[in-house]
């Protein structure tokens, strides 16, 4: 079935690096993993990096004079440097390790937000955001009375920019996704950032779905802050990143208080440490950051251009296959052109509820997500309670897409007899 397109990634070879993809089964079927937008699988080099650390080197960071402590600290700080290079950040000091990108947003809202926003100040978001880029601002609105404005979604699943200047007028921050985790849409971050800066607003980018899938350069994107999360990019759970321009981070008050983030503590006050440590209170996710560093090395070796090319091809194949095989029975929520979108494909199918589709797919070993994808406002815009979502990554190939289509056939059979 699968047509052969020229492809820079040898997926068959690459899959061997992913134990779960080659070894695990579900209901006796090989696993067809199409839920990487929720969380990706992890290759052996990432698992090995963490295992090695714990077996040969481990000690707490920034604390020990002894060699294990020094080596672990070096590995941890090297991961920070890798993360900086991976997103084109000018220096490692702008990289703050958090526990996930959700914490990156909360750090920004608590620290920068509470220091810079007061009643009536405007933050511009969009209606296609993940809850991670909504709830922290809603909390701040409840607490401080800031005003939230929303870029809305156009008919073609892109952001409607016609009212951009109006929305940005007087705004202090624009915080938007670089890739929707529901639609796959890639908003024009550079254009948005330039418009925001022109009105004096700062720009935060939710790159949770972007950094894992596209070459990223914060200077080219033109943003001031950017967040991403380790577990969606071949890394372990428990680690995320907030990158910020250093002078902005420098000026921000601490978020969480405790060990590591201080220079001095007295019973009547404390002096914070320099960035990035100022924002890393307590023992950080050491093994997790080092695992993320290994994931970054893995992705770098393959090349993010190759990843993007592969995913565009495969997304094209998936969209084509679904449309060819299911015609009007399937509704795909997202842009048509693969150059305008990433590989997350949300759909409605034959009036079946996503939960039910996913249950049948599960029986056939196919993992897709069914739900609101932590984007309830967007679900309301789309007029659905939930969607089914298949999402692609570098280790997927056309056979995975074919398996999805075959399993969708079965669910139609099962429910619609």
């Amino acid at each position: 079935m699968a047509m052969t397109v020229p492809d820079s990634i040898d997926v068959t070879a690459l899959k061997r690096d992913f134990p779960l993809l080659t070894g695990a089964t579900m209901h006796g079927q090989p696993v067809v993993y199409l839920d990487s937008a929720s969380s990706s699988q992890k290759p052996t080099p990432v698992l090995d990096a963490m295992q090695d650390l714990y077996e040969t080197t481990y000690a707490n960071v920034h604390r020990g004079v002894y060699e294990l402590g020094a080596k672990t600290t070096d590995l941890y700080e090297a991961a920070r440097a890798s993360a900086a290079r991976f997103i084109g950040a000018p220096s490692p000091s702008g990289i703050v390790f958090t526990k996930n990108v959700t914490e990156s947003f909360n750090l920004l809202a608590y620290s920068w937000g509470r220091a810079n926003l007061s009643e009536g100040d405007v933050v511009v978001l969009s209606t296609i955001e993940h809850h991670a880029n909504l709830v922290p601002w809603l909390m701040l609105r409840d607490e401080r009375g800031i005003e939230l404005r929303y870029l809305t979604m156009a008919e073609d699943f892109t952001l409607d920019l016609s009212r951009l200047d109006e929305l940005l007028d007087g705004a202090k921050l624009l915080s938007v996704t670089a890739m929707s985790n529901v639609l796959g849409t890639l908003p024009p971050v550079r254009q948005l950032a330039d418009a925001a800066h022109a009105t004096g607003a700062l720009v935060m980018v939710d790159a949770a779905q972007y950094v894992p899938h596209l070459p990223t350069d914060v200077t080219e994107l033109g943003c001031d802050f950017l967040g991403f999360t380790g577990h969606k990019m071949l890394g372990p759970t428990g680690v995320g990143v907030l990158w910020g321009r250093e002078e902005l981070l420098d000026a921000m008050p601490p978020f969480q208080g405790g060990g590591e983030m201080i220079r001095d503590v007295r019973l009547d006050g404390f002096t914070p440490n320099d960035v990035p440590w100022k924002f890393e209170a307590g023992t950080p996710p050491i093994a997790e950051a080092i695992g993320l560093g290994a994931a970054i090395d893995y992705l770098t070796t393959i090349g993010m251009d190759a990843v993007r090319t592969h995913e565009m091809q495969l997304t094209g194949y998936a969209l084509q296959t679904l449309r060819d095989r299911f015609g009007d029975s399937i509704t795909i929520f997202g842009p048509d052109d693969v150059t305008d979108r990433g590989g997350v494909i949300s759909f409605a199918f034959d009036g079946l509820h996503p939960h039910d589709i996913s249950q049948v797919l599960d029986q056939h070993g196919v993992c897709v997500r069914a739900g609101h994808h932590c984007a309830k406002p967007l679900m309301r815009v789309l007029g659905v309670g939930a969607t089914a979502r298949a999402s692609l990554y570098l280790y997927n190939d056309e056979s995975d897409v074919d398996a999805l289509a075959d399993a969708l056939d079965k669910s139609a059979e099962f429910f619609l007899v």
Partner: protein
Amino acid sequence: MPGLEDLYREIILDHYRNPRNRGELAVPPAHRVEGFNPLCGDEIVLFVEVDDDGTVRDIKISGQGCSISQSSASMMSSAVKGRTVDEVRDLTRAFKAMMSIHESSLEKDGTEPDDDLNEVPDVKLGDLEALRGVVKFPVRIKCATLAWITLAQGLEETAST
């Protein structure tokens, strides 16, 4: 390994395809209550009208959900209409007991089960028995109980006003 037939019994699919008591009721006299399944986005809106003598006179359902949550709601509506609030409470307890066998063994927490479940009333579940297979699919238990938890909340609210 439980198969799909354990989950999707014929009667469930029937209630899903032909849901009973869909719609809305005027508020008041009816009481309106909403329920969410935060994991999947399912929403249910119940309209329930209780007589002065404590009988569920009428019940209507709107909202959206999967086959399990929709059919569970539909079966529930048929089961509770015309019953007294006390009877509905017993039925709810019996239903939750059926659904929680697995859930509590899953949690392996070694703590006492929900007080509610200590004495399961001896109630015939009738058609609702068809949902027993859901316990083999723990993720879906919340789908099956959504309507019941929402109803319990609604009845509590009407009692307190």
